């Protein structure tokens, strides 16, 4: 038996396609892939919300809460931006009563990862290398491919718990 080298929880991003039966289409973020889809639909069926470059800010969240509140059951959400931001949007959509299959994500705009520290439960943004120092507790974390959809983050575990003097070589994340 062969062990699958890919961590199953790591999301895959398929090309975004229009959910043709949806009554309302909500586009969040700016990107060429979304522009083309947006242009292909009748404008009265579409809502476009810009932003996302700075993640899910308080202002954007307040705006989206209002927009989600107007959506009918048969809606579709398309989002682009950083991986963590897109999963934040997915979690907002689920809380608003939408299903996973109603939220489609573009390929993440960068390779930067959001990292969840399994020791202090805090988040470190923009991670590109492993190991990475936790921005909150300072532990040196192995950045795993294991993904938490709830946190929209990769899981980080201390890499040198037994010998803090042991500092492994840094690798770039893909």
């Amino acid at each position, binding site marked *: 038996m062969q062990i699958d080298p890919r961590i199953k929880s790591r999301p895959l991003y398929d090309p975004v396609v229009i*959910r043709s*039966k*949806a*009554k309302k289409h909500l586009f969040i973020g700016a990107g060429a892939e979304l522009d083309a889809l947006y242009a292909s639909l009748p404008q009265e069926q579409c809502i476009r919300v810009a932003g996302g470059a700075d993640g899910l800010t308080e202002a954007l969240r307040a705006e989206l809460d209002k927009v989600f509140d107007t*959506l*009918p*059951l*048969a*809606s579709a959400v398309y989002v682009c931006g950083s991986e963590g931001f897109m999963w934040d949007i997915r979690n907002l959509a*689920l809380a*608003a*009563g*939408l*299903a*996973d*299959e*109603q939220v489609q994500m573009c390929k993440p705009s960068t390779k930067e990862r959001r990292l969840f520290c399994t020791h202090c439960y805090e988040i470190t943004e923009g991670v590109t290398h492993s190991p990475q120092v936790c921005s909150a507790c300072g532990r040196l974390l192995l950045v795993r491919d294991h993904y938490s959809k709830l946190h929209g983050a990769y899981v980080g575990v201390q890499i040198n718990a037994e010998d803090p003097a042991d500092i492994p070589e840094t690798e770039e994340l893909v």
Partner: protein
Amino acid sequence: MSTDSIRVRVSGIEQVSPLIREFTLEAIDGEFLAFSPGSHVVVEMPAEPRPHRNAYSLLSDPRDSGCYRIAVRLQEQSRGGSVYMHESVKVGDELTITPPANLFAPNWNAGKHLLLAGGVGITPFMAYLPELKRRGADFELHYLYRGSSTGAYREQLKAELGEQCFLYDSEAGERCALGELLAEQPRGTHVYICGPEELIAGVREVTEELGWPASHVHFEAFAAPQPGNPFEVELSRSGRTVKVDGETTLLEALEDAEVDVPHLCRGGVCGQCVTRVLSGDIEHRDEFLSAAEREQGDCIMPCVSRASGKRLVIDL
């Protein structure tokens, strides 16, 4: 058996509609466990040449471990299980049941629960209702039946639920307009259907057309195994050949031959008994395999499905 069996005594029988009989079951050894709404048990009835084993939803309050209640509709096209329950089972009789298993649980993240029952399909919802009420959940029950044969519990439900209960007696010409009902539901609604195949197919078609997310559409339909043509099955690992006659399911024939196949619902729903097919054409009768999996033709649900030709070779 794949699961432990529980010995029960029938402590009450009530005719709850012209074709539906309710049975109250008490545990002979110790106490029952509480269960989750939507659970079913497989009831084993002693009969010759082999026991009948039918799945029935538990309809009592899930938190009540004092007794389990099930309701059985007399089936015209019965292999004998429902006739046995109606004609042979008396108060005081002993039966065995499997522990409750659940393939039809409510999704508690739903903003609203829309329950659609057809005839005896009301049974799992009888167990949903006490829990929905305890949680203060938003729900509606739409109950379709034939006044002269099904429609059990309808007066009680109407009295208890009032405006949350909608009754449709097809013999009185009352129709449930599925298209309108499903079109006007708010975001976050989950719909649950239990009833005849046509009702389930109708709701699935309408919800798809209306753009509902498929994961918000839940249904349960145990397929009673139907007779078919006799065939032979070759077990590739042992080289044995087992004959399956027209009235016997593949699962039963394997059990008779003392070949252990893990199984649960015996009604083509749960997927436990899936078995690899090495050669031969399959007549799929289950609700579990996807269209693509059926197309591949390399697995079968032996509890309900059969060979479409004379012979199958399976990986057992």
